[in-house]
């Protein structure tokens, strides 16, 4: 894949997938997936239902192990890493079906994600030794800072499950950021939102990109929406990349039009 966009910087890509693929008992859910992501990029990943978008995310986060190919973060192979290790490597995600810690408060949801950056031991926590107080205070502040970016500072003590839908989606993004990840994978963050909520969300996404210095891979069904905020778009269908490039290039690609109209082959 050699798209022609200007914002690619020199040096190693933050993420690179090489011929990545997975087979589920004969079904090639994803195959030959090649892509590179450079620092600060916002890339759209689109494709019809069942194209394999979520599967790509599951591969990149260690939920599934690829049956072919490999992928690299900052040039380092990630083959064989488990999901919790991928979070340490700096990749975090949201889920197509919201997955919050529903009985925990909004603040606790975000605090959980700081776990890997904390170092006091279980015993220090039980005995509440100085390191406990120091680190707890620090993440309390940091978690509130992140929530403020999402305008959720007023809801810190609410249980996650009691939040309105749109807020839950935002909380998931806030939680992903709190891991300290430099690469965010957002799986249909606007699904189920009304147009106002969606517009607001897209603003937030562009904001967090600069505010937290993250590179984002965004799955979205709504073409027009992706077109408006992504510099580069990758289109997959039946598990394979059928087009990639600028929104304009992609929108005018006959294969893409075909896939979206359902006229395959």
């Amino acid at each position, binding site marked *: 894949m050699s798209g022609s966009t200007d914002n690619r910087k020199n040096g190693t890509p933050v993420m690179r997938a090489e011929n990545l693929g997975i087979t589920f008992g004969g079904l090639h859910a994803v195959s030959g997936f090649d892509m590179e992501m450079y620092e600060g990029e916002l890339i759209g990943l689109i494709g019809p239902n069942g194209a394999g978008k*979520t599967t790509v*995310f*599951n591969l990149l*986060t260690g*939920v*599934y192990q690829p049956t072919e190919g490999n992928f690299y973060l900052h040039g380092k192979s990630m083959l064989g890493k*488990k*999901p*919790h290790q*991928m*979070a*340490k490597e700096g990749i*975090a*995600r949201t*889920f*197509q*079906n919201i*997955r*919050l*810690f*529903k*009985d*925990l408060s909004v603040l*606790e*949801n975000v*605090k*959980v*994600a*700081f*776990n*890997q950056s*904390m170092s*006091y031991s*279980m015993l220090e*926590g*039980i*005995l*509440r030794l100085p390191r*406990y*107080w*120091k*680190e*707890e*205070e620090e993440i309390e502040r940091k978690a509130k800072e992140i929530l403020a970016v999402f305008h959720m500072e007023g809801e810190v*003590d609410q*249980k996650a*499950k009691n939040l309105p839908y749109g807020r839950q989606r935002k909380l998931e993004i806030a*939680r*992903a950021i*709190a*891991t300290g990840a430099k690469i965010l994978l957002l799986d249909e963050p606007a699904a189920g939102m009304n147009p106002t909520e969606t517009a607001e969300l897209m603003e937030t996404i562009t904001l967090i990109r600069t505010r937290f210095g993250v590179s984002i891979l965004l799955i979205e069904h709504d073409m027009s929406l992706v077109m408006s905020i992504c510099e580069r778009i990758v289109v997959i269908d039946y598990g394979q990349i059928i087009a990639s490039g600028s929104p304009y290039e992609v929108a005018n690609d006959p294969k893409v039009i075909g896939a979206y109209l359902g006229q395959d082959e």
Partner: protein
Amino acid sequence: MKRTLSKTSINGFINYGIVIAAFLILQLLMAQGMISNTLKSLLVPVCCYIVMAISLNLTVGILGELSLGHAGFMSLGAFSGIVAAMAMQEFSPVPRLIAAILVGSIAGALGGVLVGVPVLRLQGDYLAIVTLAFGEIIRNIIVVLYVGLDQKGIHITTNSAGPALEEGGIMVIKGPMGAVGVPKLASFTAGFVLILITLFVVQNLVNSRAGRAIMALRDNRIAAESVGIHVTKYKLMAFVISAALAGAAGALFGLNYSSTVSSKFGFNTSILILVFVVLGGLGSIRGSIISAALLYILPEMLRGFEFITKARMLIYAVILIAVMLTINNPALKSLLEERDLSLGGLLGKLKNGGRAKKGGAGQ
């Protein structure tokens, strides 16, 4: 350093307050001679059962894994604690009791590791089945165990003739007769202190990063992993602490009677403790304390009525089923959720073995 009080830590302080108040009131009543001997004899076991309920709540309510063999860890603690106490004849009662409780908690923890390491890495309802089997295995092993002490140390055999002991040696565990000649070192004060320690450990754990991680993986394992939570590590942590506390309670329990048989710690006891936890509310420490205290003392006080003694387990089973059914009733469930009584949601989890409901892996 600013140490703000969160809602949860205030809740924790209230729990200490309730326990301390109850202890002081009972001490006062005892000094006035206003407490019957029956009730007096229940004070230590009630403390043990409160510790059992709080510790099981850590596994079932806070970690979200079903355990049906909690009494097995109590049993390990009881018999190892008894052996430790009897091996320390020359010491005074308090250090003996403390050492026995420590030994009991270590034995419980080791049992927890033994069960937890292979099982907790699996997803699904395996823990319930394995803990159930574990409890029964422990019970059956102790029934055939003969343990004696002499100058040379501990002698263990399954031979019903018992181990050959030197002059002055004593038998501690005599197979089906259980532990005999046990020094009654337990006291109400010791039980009270053990409850406070249990509260301290569990509540502080819950309010630390480990506790958040444990509750996060209960609520959504896949999401917890995605933010860097090592699932097996935290599951094991909660489960082993829970088992260690059960072991400690077991040691205290064992040292409250001059003899103890392993059938005291069978499946019925595990279910009894589970009933305390479920009725007290999954995840609610205060609920566990109150329901364990009430549900343990009430039937004991009614022992005069033969029907209740005989039908006790039946009544518990019916209560447990009734609670499950009402709470899974959609209409009631939504009512409970509205009132923010999260018991329902957690019970649903219990049934699903803690699996998240929606979607496949990573959807």
